[in-house]
């Protein structure tokens, strides 16, 4: 047996009325791995994501993260334990500055209480100053240098995506979930982003779980790929195994993907 994985789901299931969106999926993310989740639209990828972050409560099954059972806990508990995420349709705090967005991400890592905030005790002042410095570092790391005071909505599309990642990193995750991060990016931005994801692992020691449609990103950066179709896991393996898998080609990739590699 391998060492315990960072994240493990067992028979995770979500039904919406009669519709089975995610059908008893067993899934693992090993520590420090980059794993991709692919599948056609409506395959249940985002629903699966939402169960991994506590936004949805699973109908059945369990989510175990770093050895701790998190099934049924509220979203902030998942974030506190170390699962950070971005959203498919960007959900920044549009009217806050970039810096404030990142500071919100640090919420669970800061301790300042209501009374301390009113009195602005030295401890809280020190903590806030430290948080601001760290937030600036994160913005710089994510390629948002000198954009601290830009309002979220005024950032370019690519920068909004980057800010979402910076905000997720501010939660100090062990596992980062990225939901279609390159959607709407041009090839150049996509290539930069792929490098950036690789850097997350090397520089920050993160495991990354990626929902992605762009096969160049998926094949270029992942250690493992899991394929969902109609809520079911139909395949799992290394990128090259997935590319050769008959069921995956039929359900999702199509024969063209195989020939272009």
């Amino acid at each position, binding site marked *: 047996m391998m060492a315990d994985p960072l994240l493990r789901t067992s028979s995770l299931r979500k039904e919406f009325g009669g519709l089975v969106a995610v059908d008893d999926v067993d899934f693992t993310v090993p520590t420090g791995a980059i794993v991709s989740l692919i599948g056609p639209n409506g395959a249940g990828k985002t629903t699966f994501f939402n169960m991994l972050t506590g936004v*949805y409560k699973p109908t059945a099954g369990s989510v175990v993260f770093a050895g701790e059972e998190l099934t049924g806990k509220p*979203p902030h508990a998942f974030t506190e334990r170390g699962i950070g995420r971005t959203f498919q349709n960007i959900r920044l705090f549009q009217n806050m500055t970039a810096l404030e967005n990142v500071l919100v991400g640090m919420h669970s890592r800061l301790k300042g209480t209501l009374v301390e905030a009113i009195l602005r005790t030295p401890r809280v002042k020190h903590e806030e100053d430290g948080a601001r410095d760290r937030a600036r570092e994160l913005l710089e790391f994510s390629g948002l240098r000198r954009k601290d005071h830009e309002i979220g909505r005024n950032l370019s599309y690519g920068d909004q995506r980057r800010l979402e990642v910076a905000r997720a990193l501010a939660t100090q995750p062990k596992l980062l979930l990225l939901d279609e991060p390159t959607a709407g990016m041009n090839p150049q931005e996509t290539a930069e982003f792929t490098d950036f994801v690789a850097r997350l692992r090397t520089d920050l020691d993160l495991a990354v779980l990626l929902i992605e449609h762009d096969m160049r990103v998926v094949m270029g950066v992942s250690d493992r790929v899991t394929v969902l179709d109609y809520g079911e896991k139909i395949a799992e393996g290394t990128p090259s195994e997935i590319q050769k898998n008959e069921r995956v080609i039929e359900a999702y990739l199509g024969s063209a993907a195989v020939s272009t590699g």
Partner: protein
Amino acid sequence: MRRVVGGAISDAWWSVFGALGLSRARWEALPNIARRAVKASIWTAIGLVLVAYFGVWQWSALAIAAVVLVLVVPSYSRVTIGGRRVGRFIVPLAALAIAITYPFYAYTSTGVSPGLPQLPVFGTFPLMSTMVNMGIFTMMALGLNFVVGYAGLLDLGYVAFYAMGSYMAGWLASSQFSQVNVRFGGIGVIQGLTGIHISIWLVLLAAGLMTAFVGVVIGLPTLRLRGDYLAIVTLGFGEILPQVARNGNSLLGFNLTNGTGGITPIDPPGFGSWAHHHLGLPANYGALGTTFDRDYFWTVLVLVLVTIFCSARLRDSRLGRAWIAIREDEVAAAAMGIPLMRTKTWAYATGAFFGGVAGAFYASYNGSSNPDEFYFQISVFILVMVILGGMGNIWGVIFGACFLTYLNSEGLNNIGAWLNTHFGPGGSDVTLWHKTLDVPEYNFGIYGVILVVVMLFRPEGLIPSRRRAAEFHEGVHDQPLYDAAA
């Protein structure tokens, strides 16, 4: 709507100016300070015409100064001393100075202010009692601002907290419970009274804490709800608490609230004889005779300053950021590790705290807590103050509270009197109607119209926070997509 009407007006403007050779592009190319100066002069000219029309020349200098200050002062806000931006404190400090000194030139034993001239339309300057009420309502509006302005939770039952604070003062500083005889720091209290008499300063704190606790108790089951549902449940609580007070004269045989009679008299504040002799502070506000309003006013001013201070500090803290994040996008906020329930409950409790303190102070000022004062309209009134002034902006909320309290206490009365003498029966200008118009009768109709006009043309309020203005014009994308309630 706003864009259509505003756009049409502005297009009309610019076609006129364009004909005179001043195009919009050239105007916008001017430096900011020049544009401000031009605007200031235009407003000054308008002010002068008005002043000339109403014939109050002695006020023209002040009016011009005020207009220029308001329009040009934003550029002073960048003034720094030793790296600190002190410019932004100029206007608040000036306002504070005027407020502190106001009783000296406005006060007389009969309450009228002969030292100050009559204003056109608005008549006399506000009385001291109105000023005290303004302070109390400012506190409450700032308290509600935590809930509505910061955390974006619609609360239609804020009056419940006001009532709670008021009754706390009734229980802890009156002869209501004459079965017992408790005295604790009951400084300035008339000797020989039965019942519980605790120093009013402690009562204010106790009322705030107790009300915050009630806020938590009410909040825990309700704050899971979203938007409209939350509003309806808060509305319910806002009705329940005053009803309990109204009918609480025989709870299992125990007289808790004295029913419709209310609790009276409640001890006035005071510092006791030691502080009176050594520090010159009033021993008992009730024994001050005719100048008592003045001391209440300064006291409430201190309370308001404390509230402003707490509002500003919390807004810029970890908790304040979390409130604003929840307002903008609950799902994203939860994903960033913000515990929604706990954070919302804190907003609710903080808002309740200040509502409770204001209620207790009001009870002490009035000398009674009476269930008839806590009706639904008060909740709406306070909400209108927050909306009119500018949700989330401390100065906006203060302005909204002061302005509406003034209108309600005497402004409408004065305006009505002015209208009647000029246009009413035998009016001095022209007779437009033949029966005296009772303007204060229509108070809530008038506030309704004000609210509708504000919502159409300036939905972010008169003095909005930068962020709120953006939200109203661009919209927030807070789709309630998910089933996360916690």
